[in-house]
């Protein structure tokens, strides 16, 4: 096991990349801790699979280095990197039994039979597959097959990292939860470094200690689920995380106040130096907006209320833009409530889509 260092890393699929947009993966420097559970989260085509393939050795990056611990593995082929990978679709050796499938990576490396046996039984117990060890892998269900794939990844104790490439795509929703829980348990028990690629925010937020959000070939934010929720570093993170995503509204900022269409919104911090930015926006999560009939709010027009059980999502029109407001389950929403209040402490300010840190007012 080892920490993973991505140093000065970038990749372009075409030779001689000229402009920034030629890079599928833009230059990045990151250190991922030994034993951490990381999720790479982003929409399709954001470069997360490219990054994963660079780490697993299927792709050699156009520039920069990948280090496992202190060893430079940038140009090492996959089989010499000592990693394990679980793919989107279950990969099992059909003609082998479950036992042989789990033992395969160990036997190929010449591990002694009694050690193989102990380890395989250990993994099977963790996965709850002890009773099917003697069965052929072919006849099993998709989720059992995917569990075998997970098991084969986990069976070697000395792997530097286990990579997961959207491993729960083909799994039934109710099994997803169970497998994810099992993964967490396996992570706690064995302490492997895990890197989990997904486009599903729930999966990323429940699995990972640190979520790496990618957008357009760039890591836009790396942080705990709480960071991503409270202080999205980029407006994309705001949109992408949360359901519905953050409300992002163009505004003028003057000191500790934001102005939208001439209406003042108080902020909890003091901002300056935003004159050079092309676009200035404020972002506030629907959870921190309150619908009210008090006169100090800003005028909104409620378009639609979606009752999703635990809470209500109010879709409202605010100076021609849609804003989402989350109201508690029991809240009654009447026609008189045509004003909205922003929680000043929860408003983030963005210049050219990136967050701006204010000074305490």
């Amino acid at each position, binding site marked *: 096991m080892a920490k993973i260092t991505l140093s000065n890393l970038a990749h372009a699929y075409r030779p001689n990349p000229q402009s920034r947009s030629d890079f599928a993966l833009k230059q990045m420097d990151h250190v991922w801790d030994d034993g951490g559970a990381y999720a790479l989260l982003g929409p399709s085509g954001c470069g997360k699979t490219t990054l994963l393939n660079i780490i697993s050795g299927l792709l050699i990056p156009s520039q920069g280095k990948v280090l496992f611990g202190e060893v430079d593995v940038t140009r090492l082929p996959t089989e010499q990197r000592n990693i394990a990978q679980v*793919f*989107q679709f279950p990969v099992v*050796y*059909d003609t082998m039994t479950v036992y042989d499938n789990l033992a*395969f*990576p160990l036997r*190929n490396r010449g591990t002694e039979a009694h050690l193989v046996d102990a380890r395989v039984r250990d993994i099977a117990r963790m996965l709850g597959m002890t009773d099917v060890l003697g069965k*052929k892998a072919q006849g099993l269900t998709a989720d059992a097959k995917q569990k075998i794939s997970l098991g084969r990844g986990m069976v070697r104790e000395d792997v530097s990292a286990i990579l997961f490439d959207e491993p729960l795509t083909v799994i039934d929703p109710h099994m997803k939860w169970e497998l994810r829980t099992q993964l967490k348990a396996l992570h706690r028990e064995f302490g492997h470094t895990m890197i989990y690629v997904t486009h599903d925010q729930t999966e990323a937020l429940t699995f990972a200690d640190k979520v790496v959000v990618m957008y357009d070939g760039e890591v836009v934010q790396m942080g705990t689920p709480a960071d991503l929720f409270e202080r999205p570093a980029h407006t994309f993170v705001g949109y992408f995380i949360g359901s519905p995503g953050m409300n992002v509204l163009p505004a003028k900022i003057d000191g500790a106040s934001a102005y939208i269409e001439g209406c003042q919104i108080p902020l909890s911090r003091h901002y300056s130096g935003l004159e050079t930015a092309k676009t200035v926006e404020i972002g506030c999560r629907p959870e921190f907006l309150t619908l009210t009939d008090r006169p100090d709010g800003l005028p909104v027009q409620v378009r639609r209320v979606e009752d999703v059980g635990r809470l209500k999502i109010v879709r409202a029109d605010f100076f021609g833009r849609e804003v989402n407001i989350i109201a508690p389950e029991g809240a009654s929403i009447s026609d008189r409530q045509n004003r909205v209040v922003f929680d000043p402490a929860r408003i983030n300010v963005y210049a050219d889509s990136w967050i701006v840190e204010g000074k305490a007012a």
Partner: protein
Amino acid sequence: MEKTFNNKAWFMVLPVVLLVAFSAVVPLMTVVNYSVQDTFGNNQFFWAGLQWFEEVLTSERLHDALIRQFIFSAVILALEIPLGIAVSLCIPKRGVWSSFCLVLMALPLLIPWNVVGTIWQIFGRVDIGLLGATMAALGIDYNYTQNAAHAWITIVVMDVWHWTSLVALLCFAGLQSIPDAYYQAAKIDGAGRWKIFRYIELPKMNRVLLIAVLLRFMDSFMIYTEPFVVTGGGPGNSTTLLSIDLVKIALGQFDLGPAAAFSIIYFLIILLLSWVFYTVMTNYGKGEGR
């Protein structure tokens, strides 16, 4: 829900019944008809019972032909299946060369059987054939018209040349359908080339291999044209395979009864063996391990 019964619906099946009757059942029954009757010409037939079947089953000549036929099919399968798999593994997976190889492989399959026979008949001739003349020039005593072993080698090599491509193309299609993830997983699991073949490629080719084995078995068991053109069944009876013998009986001697009985037995053998191959290969890899 209550099911509706309407016997008129049976009429819907009528076209299929007619089609199958005229394409399969009626011709087959003609053969059955011949197999239980005797004739002295003039379109007069006499009931003969199972006499022809007894005769055919006890005929030494046919036993020999049957044994030759089994040896031939076994040799063909033993050569063409492994060779076809090996060739398919060598074809580039994508790109111009892949298409080039596929077209090249398909060429022998496009040549009519009797032309293939003629090609090899001339190719092997000692006086004018490239192969035969070359062998003679090298001092190798090769003559398929006089030496039974040489005749056998010639028709086996000819069949391998003609049909290995079919096995290779089928296997190639099977290989192409294996997702890349399997190869990546095998690399990560540290599997070598042999293990990749044994545990990924071969099991994934199982279905196409079944088709390849069935087709090659049936075709080689029924082979007629090529050996007939090359050797005419000789020298002696050494390359007289079942269908060559059948034609000799039916058309050479005009013994319709024995020929019909022979045809039915022939058909049943092919049916039985194809069923055995099918059952064995579809059940392979299923069920409980240890």
